[in-house]
């Protein structure tokens, strides 16, 4: 019999980390933290999860602690949001450069000032260029499943992964979630216990100062320069465009659920007018697509699941026949436009695709976005695009 529970995405994330038998959890326990780490602390306290739980003094320290623990061979997990994630920024670069398989839940929330605790995706989008994989989830089941997949992916290619899901919309909303059998999770995700960097009695200095050009180490090996390591990081992130869907398919073979790999499609078979978005907003676009279809417009939706690495090829292929493309996103690169819109437009340009392209910023700081607003905005894009606008700004 299936174990289906009515839980929030935060509870789903904590259960996923527990099923993955994480060994070290480090988290700053105060706002903007969420009940993810509260749940995990309770599991450790009750003896259900055999993990070292570190309550550190800041998110910067939380990330530093899990990086160190991961380098020593522990499976690690942390979670944060908003300004906490921003405070981690330096250590996010450090984690990616250190090539550690850290998995983190990022509960998407708006960034201060002024203070907000409500949902948008500005926090994780602002970490776009740190070298992390970013996966965006559309519901709580996907959050649970994606965290399990994330450990699989990150431990294969030594890249840290941020599993992003919308604050409150998902994080605090209770929905039915199937909790997988731990025996199956163990089969899908074998234990991670050996540090690739250290052997007993052989001390190593990780991340010493390196200079621009390759150079001999004390043992006479030629070691890469800074730029060579950065090029390798970029190559491996691009290679993750294969690993991410691969892990999703393998997950499907064990658990019977898959989430589209890099992106998912809704009513795209004959779609002429495509809405593109991420997270729960993309889910909401499916309702808007239904209503546009009722009005005789062939509408479809693409949800971007992997934002970094960016599935440029897969998106361009999926949008090859689109007449209009409308992007909805809960972030903005101030002074230009939404980040997803910029990235998608570049991907289309590279393949000489020129659909009528509109993009909207929506739902910042928890402002409600209704499907009828999305449908209306998409329709404006179809009739009078290209539009670069915002939805529902008051005054």
């Amino acid at each position, binding site marked *: 019999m299936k174990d289906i529970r009515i839980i929030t995405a935060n509870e789903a994330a904590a259960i996923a980390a527990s099923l993955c038998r994480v060994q070290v959890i480090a988290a700053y326990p105060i706002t903007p933290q969420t009940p993810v780490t509260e749940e995990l602390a309770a599991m450790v306290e009750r003896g259900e999860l055999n993990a070292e739980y570190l309550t550190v003094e800041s998110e910067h320290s939380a990330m530093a602690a899990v990086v160190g623990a991961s380098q020593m061979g522990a499976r690690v997990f942390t979670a944060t949001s908003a300004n906490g994630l921003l405070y981690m920024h330096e250590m996010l670069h450090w984690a990616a*450069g*250190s*090539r550690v398989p850290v998995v983190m839940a990022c509960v998407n929330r708006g960034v201060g000032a002024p203070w907000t605790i409500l949902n948008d995706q500005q926090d994780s989008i602002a970490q776009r260029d740190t070298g992390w994989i970013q996966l965006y989830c559309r519901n709580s089941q996907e959050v649970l499943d994606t965290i399990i997949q994330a450990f699989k992916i990150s431990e294969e290619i*030594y890249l840290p992964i941020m599993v992003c899901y919308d604050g409150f919309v998902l994080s605090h909303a209770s929905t039915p979630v199937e909790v997988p059998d731990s025996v199956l999770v163990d089969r899908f995700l074998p234990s991670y216990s050996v540090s690739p*960097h250290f052997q007993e009695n*052989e*001390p*190593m*200095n*990780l*991340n*010493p*100062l*390196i*200079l621009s050009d*390759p*150079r001999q*180490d*004390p*043992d006479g*090996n*030629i*070691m*890469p320069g800074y730029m*060579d*390591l950065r090029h*390798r990081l970029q190559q*491996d992130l691009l290679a993750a465009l294969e690993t991410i869907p691969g892990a999703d398919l393998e997950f499907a073979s064990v658990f019977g659920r898959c989430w589209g790999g890099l992106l998912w499609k809704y009513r795209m078979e004959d779609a002429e007018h495509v809405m593109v978005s991420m997270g729960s907003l993309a889910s909401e676009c499916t309702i808007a697509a239904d209503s546009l279809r009722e009005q005789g417009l062939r509408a479809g939706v693409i949800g971007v699941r992997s934002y970094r690495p960016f599935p440029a090829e897969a998106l361009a292929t999926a949008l090859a026949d689109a007449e209009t493309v409308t992007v909805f996103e809960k972030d903005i690169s101030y002074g230009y436009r939404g980040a997803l819109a910029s990235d998608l437009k570049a991907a289309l340009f590279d393949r000489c695709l020129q659909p009528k392209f509109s993009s909207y910023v929506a739902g910042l700081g928890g402002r409600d976005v209704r499907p009828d607003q999305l449908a209306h905005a998409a329709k404006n894009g179809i009739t009078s695009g290209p539009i670069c606008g915002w939805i529902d700004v008051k005054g």
Partner: protein
Amino acid sequence: MADMIKHTLLAKSRPAPGEAGKTGDWRSLTPVIDQDKCSKKESCLMCWLYCPDGVIGREFPLQIDLEYCKGCGICAEECPRKAITMKK
């Protein structure tokens, strides 16, 4: 060489002198010890204690490893007998 670079994921090294290269060539001023002024006492060794690069030995007469000394001048500043001067 290209192969080694290609297969290296991150910067690491066995802890050893010179893992960051021969840093002595970063130096603009060079510490010079006046051995007549040095106390030659184990109870002092302030220069050895303060040297951030660990390039001053503990044996008397004291020697500074100029292959790695970056010329920060902390030893000259800390020496209670002003036995170290920084010279061009």
